[in-house]
């Protein structure tokens, strides 16, 4: 059960300026715990952004991205009331998503 994401989205004209805060350990698989054991690889692999149900961003990221990633992007052609959905999938098959209405 993943922790909630937080979206901040501002609309200027037809451009939505979006920032998403994601809670994820983003383990590289190279860190060791206190007992010297390797902490297994655990990271977000895919991020998808949908505007009113239509995919506008389809991203693949790697374990090189650090813990609690922040994803900032701009979407053109947005207007007030549009639904913005962000979802991610990690290497263990865990998912999370959140959505907001643009104002």
């Amino acid at each position: 059960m993943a922790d909630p994401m937080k979206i901040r989205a501002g609309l200027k004209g037809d451009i939505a300026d979006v920032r998403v805060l994601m809670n994820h350990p983003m383990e590289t698989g190279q860190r060791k715990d206190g007992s010297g054991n390797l902490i297994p690889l655990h990271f977000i692999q895919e991020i998808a952004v949908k505007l009113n149900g239509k995919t506008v961003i389809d991203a693949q990221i790697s374990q090189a991205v650090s813990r609690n990633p922040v994803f900032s992007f701009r979407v053109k052609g947005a207007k007030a009331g549009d639904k913005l959905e962000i979802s991610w999938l990690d290497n263990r098959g865990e998912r999370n998503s959140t959505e907001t209405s643009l104002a």
Partner: protein
Amino acid sequence: MSLARWIPAAAFACACAGAAAQDAKKEIEKYQRMIADSSPVELFELEGEALWKKKQGPKHVSLEACDLGLGAGVLKGAYARLPRYFADADRVMDLETRLLHCMTTLQGHSREDATKRVFGNEDRLSEMEYLSAYIAGQSRGMPMAPGTSHPKEQAAFELGRKTFFYRAGAWDFSCASCHGEEGKRIRMQDLPVLYKPENARPVVATWPAYRVSNSQFKTMQWRLNNCFQQMRYPEPNYASDITVALTMFLTATGEGEPYRGPGTKR
């Protein structure tokens, strides 16, 4: 084309030890501006809000009736008015001390249970840390205004000030040993002269804070604890009078500064 290749090489050849250290400083400042731009702190505030409203403890109540100084459950602006005197406890309290008070009196936790895990880690913050992020965030933009009129508030300030300049411990350090003279740094970490208002203000305006280098969220109680550890003292008691006094001293020295919300640091 050969000239264009010459210039960068010449620039590197001219760099000397002093300039390299200055460049390192500039890069660090640039990095700090970048990390301040996006912070997972807002996620921690959300979690803190959930904990504030969650029924917990032997009495199975939430913290929503907790009075942080502006009335039961009033959060907006409360953090900026701490530390302050609380008549019901007859003590000056900082945020964590007051939360501990509410966890024990309202929720019925023993002090031992409530302080079992006060400092978290990168995997999971402590409840105190989530709550601190949430409550501090409710004071964004408000001027820091700790209590300074009650005799106990003034006594706390004075105790903090005296302690700041008092040398002790295995290495004969006072807070002023590191934070008492302009232009000093430990390794590459600049040391603000904290008894001067102009230096205390940006500090009090940005704690508690997320530390990017280890992905942990830290409070003032932690900051003081860690200072004393590095000063080679024994350990301060959590939420003790001396820790509140030092926080009072720093906050009152930085009085008036608009609170920027929980910070993002190195």
